[in-house]
């Protein structure tokens, strides 16, 4: 076996869709890359769940991090083969029962987008192996040194880092760059790149996606929210949408921390730990679970702007009518190299795929309703939206307006009491 080239990744997706037509759908992404490539994703699921959960797994963002797409293709093939064969699945010492595989495929839409940056991968695998970005020449001025955008700095999360972050947050060199010659060049605008537009399109087309994993290498880390600043659970006003905190983000131990709900924070770490345990069970590789803002091995801070996991997490916080997403960035391979041998890569595939199955199991809804319930709910929502058009009333109709009006009166009254209660404790 060898690493998959970009043609093989697309063929593999097509082959899986043809072989398992009743449980898959080949999704053609609408935005072609700078070099004219059309990307595909594969949806795995029977759509029988009520409610139906959604998981999106992407990889291949950074061209030189070769193994990600291979991990995803193997994962999709394993899941489909086990489900249709009504078997369980084992990776070294980590195993899953047939019932667990069945629960994933029947109650979760698993969308695998294995190679979001095929231009970059092709260039890395054939020309300059250490290439990181995509191959968009738009900002290059015809200079080879200035081709490409770092796809994982192009998402719309605090993208304009010169405005939104403290100047001191640049120190670690991980935030982003406005210089097209830099490896961290963030593009000319958020979502300026076909690759990020395609990921956004998947979230829009499949609004029930509630779990997101972006696979990178290397390090052996599972990183969760947030990546721009320290987490805090006390003050919802300190958040990425609040322009009053522009110029103050990205430094630890100061007045600003990014708000995350207490339950969200606990859930983010808990799911990360479950994935890490599944990986460790394969052959003992210990992946660290950490907030993305912190460097796991050193305790220092390294903020990022425009990263996929933060953007996925931010969608709900910016618009509570959207599905809450738990977004992660996994850095596979504890050996510090972008280019493991294929023999080593096969071991890594087993590690990570064991973690991905566990990740999907986390997405399986705890409660399952009869399917007629979902049909009734859909009819009710359709009627509700006809009576109260969302474009006029918002997604929740008049109740959202009533709730906001009540909140605007009650919260300012209650907040000082809560604050003084906390201080007394």
């Amino acid at each position, binding site marked *: 076996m060898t690493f998959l080239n970009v043609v093989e990744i697309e063929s593999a997706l097509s082959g899986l869709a043809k072989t398992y037509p009743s449980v898959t759908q080949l999704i053609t992404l609408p935005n072609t890359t700078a070099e004219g490539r059309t990307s595909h994703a594969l949806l795995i699921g029977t759509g029988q769940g009520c409610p139906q959960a959604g998981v999106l797994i992407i990889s291949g963002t950074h061209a030189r991090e070769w193994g990600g797409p291979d991990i995803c293709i193997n994962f999709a093939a394993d899941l489909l083969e086990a489900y249709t064969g009504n078997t369980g699945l084992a990776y070294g010492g980590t195993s899953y029962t047939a019932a667990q595989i069945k629960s994933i495929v029947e109650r979760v839409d698993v969308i695998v987008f294995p190679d979001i940056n095929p231009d970059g991968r092709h260039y890395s695998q054939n020309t300059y192996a250490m290439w990181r970005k995509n191959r968009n020449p738009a900002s290059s001025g015809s200079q080879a040194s200035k081709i490409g955008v770092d796809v994982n700095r192009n998402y719309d999360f605090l993208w304009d880092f010169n405005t939104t972050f403290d100047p001191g947050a640049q120190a670690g060199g*991980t935030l982003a760059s406005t210089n097209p010659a830099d490896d961290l060049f963030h593009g000319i605008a958020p979502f300026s790149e076909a690759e990020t537009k395609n990921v956004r399109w998947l979230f829009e087309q499949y609004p029930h996606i509630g779990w997101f994993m972006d696979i990178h290498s290397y390090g052996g880390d599972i990183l969760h929210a947030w990546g721009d600043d320290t987490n805090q659970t006390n003050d919802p006003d300190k958040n990425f949408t609040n322009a009053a905190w522009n110029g103050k983000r990205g430094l630890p131990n100061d007045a600003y921390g990014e708000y995350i709900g207490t339950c969200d924070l606990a859930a983010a770490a808990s799911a990360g730990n479950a994935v890490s345990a599944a990986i460790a069970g394969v052959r003992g590789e210990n992946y660290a679970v950490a907030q993305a803002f912190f460097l796991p*091995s*050193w305790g220092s801070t390294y903020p990022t702007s425009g990263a996929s996991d933060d953007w996925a997490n931010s969608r709900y916080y910016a618009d509570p009518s959207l599905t809450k997403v738990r977004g992660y960035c996994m850095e596979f391979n504890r050996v510090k190299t972008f280019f493991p*041998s294929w023999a080593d890569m096969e071991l890594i595939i087993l590690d990570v*795929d064991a973690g991905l199955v566990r990740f999907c199991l986390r997405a399986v809804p705890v409660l399952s309703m009869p399917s007629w319930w979902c049909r009734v709910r859909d009819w009710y929502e359709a009627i509700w939206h006809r009576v109260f058009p969302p474009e006029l009333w918002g997604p929740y109709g008049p109740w959202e307006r009533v709730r906001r009006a009540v909140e605007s009166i009650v919260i300012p009254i209650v907040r000082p009491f809560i604050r003084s209660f906390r201080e007394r404790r």
Partner: protein
Amino acid sequence: MDDKIQPADSNQSQRKEENPPDLYAARITGSRETLARLMQTVQLDVGCRHPEVEANPDRTASLLVYATKERIRELEAANYKVETLENVSELGRQRQKEVGQGDRFEGGSVAPRGLGQKGNYRKGGSAS
């Protein structure tokens, strides 16, 4: 340490040509303050998302970076303690030989098989 190093992307120059100079992995060792100051003044290629930093028993730390020979010489000239490791560009060229040629899945006529073991497993890991 002095600051003779250009505060720009360490690897810009190598990509100005069609055949850029090779990149080497390099381990820079110093105090936390030294490494923090280095990262403040020079944008280094430190990998994917986080710099890889290892604490040493003597309370120093080592930072893994990717740089050209020219950049490594600049770092050494600025009195940073740099250990040059493997030529990662050469490693990449070797690994390019381990990339598939053609299309083993014949345009989608053949489906890939996963590497996981299929069988009847019980919760807890044993096969039945």
